């Protein structure tokens, strides 16, 4: 019976409306999300730094510590950087509407891929659709909801959208679903 649960969740994933939640995104399925991601990890945000690059553009580097590796080469305890466009320097902010927004101390699950600009830096795979906040469900277990993205106020009235992963999906079920898809 235990094997039925991930299958059931997979069915729910397939039937859930994939809500595009960003600037303009093509709607993708969970299978599409998993297919080209290089790594999936539960992380804690250690620090964030924003700076103007030589392009010039404003980017934020988030240092993340791996709490648990769900898929791919990153290992628990390891720290690594994720780079996203946007950030704040002095009184000036650049936001890429719908792109992931990191905050120190956040507990997240992120799907990762690489920038294709030659830097090979990590970035969140498929933007807001590969970016989830870890919360406790009613039973006190880790579960996922859509993480805050640029253009949303973290402490304001949040619009909770399911995006691709259903709200309050348990991490263990996510792991098993990923393994079934790959």
């Amino acid at each position: 019976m235990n094997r039925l649960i991930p299958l059931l969740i997979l069915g729910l994933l397939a039937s859930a409306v994939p809500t595009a939640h960003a600037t303009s995104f093509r709607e993708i399925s969970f299978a599409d999300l998993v297919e080209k991601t290089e790594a999936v990890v539960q992380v804690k945000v250690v620090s964030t730094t924003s700076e103007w690059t030589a392009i010039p553009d404003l980017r934020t580097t988030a240092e993340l510590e791996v709490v648990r590796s769900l898929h791919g080469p990153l290992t628990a305890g390891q720290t690594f950087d994720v780079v996203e466009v946007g950030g704040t320097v002095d009184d000036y902010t650049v936001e890429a509407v719908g792109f992931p927004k990191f905050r120190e101390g956040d507990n997240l699950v992120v799907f990762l891929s690489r920038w294709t600009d030659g830097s090979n830096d990590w970035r969140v795979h498929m933007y807001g659709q590969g970016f989830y906040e870890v919360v406790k469900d009613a039973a006190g277990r880790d579960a996922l909801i859509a993480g805050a993205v640029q253009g949303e106020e973290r402490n304001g009235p949040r619009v909770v959208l399911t995006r691709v992963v259903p709200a309050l999906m348990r991490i263990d079920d996510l792991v098993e679903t990923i393994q079934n898809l790959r």
Partner: protein
Amino acid sequence: MIRKITLICAASVALTVLADTTADAYQLLSPQRKWYNTPVMVEFNNNYPETSVTDGDYGKQAITASYFSNNGWNGTGAGTMLDGMILSRNAVQGDGRPTVQFNDPHGYCGGNCLAVTLTGFWHWRGGVEEIDDADIYFSPNTQFTSEREDPSAFWDCSAGEFYIEGVLQHELGHLLGLDHSGVVGATMYSGVSACDKTVDELGNDDRNGINALY
């Protein structure tokens, strides 16, 4: 165990329904921000035409019509919001010159991204944010079409193509300070489907949003 599965299913469905219904009207970007001088002069970069649009001028006339149409953001009742010109100048973040660019040299918009709007804003004027720059990048990996190229979405549009007019109108909504709406059919609705040619026609929800902000 079956009871457990049933509970999981019920909770997931309930939350999915809840999630899809909580955002039932226009949303402003947060923190709220706006342009203090309108109309906003937007530059269309002519260096990299959108070559996937094969309507004779790479969508130039199509997007110009979309951009200036009285049914667009200029026709909401808030006044003339946008003006534009075609130039051969690349987008630069923070330069105070809003630019629409049909390529993505820095790789912002990959994967499933069709187009992205980057807004730059200052924190001042008594705590109110003022947008001073916004650049729109279209993905070079997406096949776009136009209403000139494919007048009938049903008969003409090829699978996987997106109408450039609708995507542009949506991005211009972000440029002006709107976030996604939960109203299905609104230009600022969070989802867009291939061959949907209705997105460039603003709905009441879009008009209400821009009128509330401006």
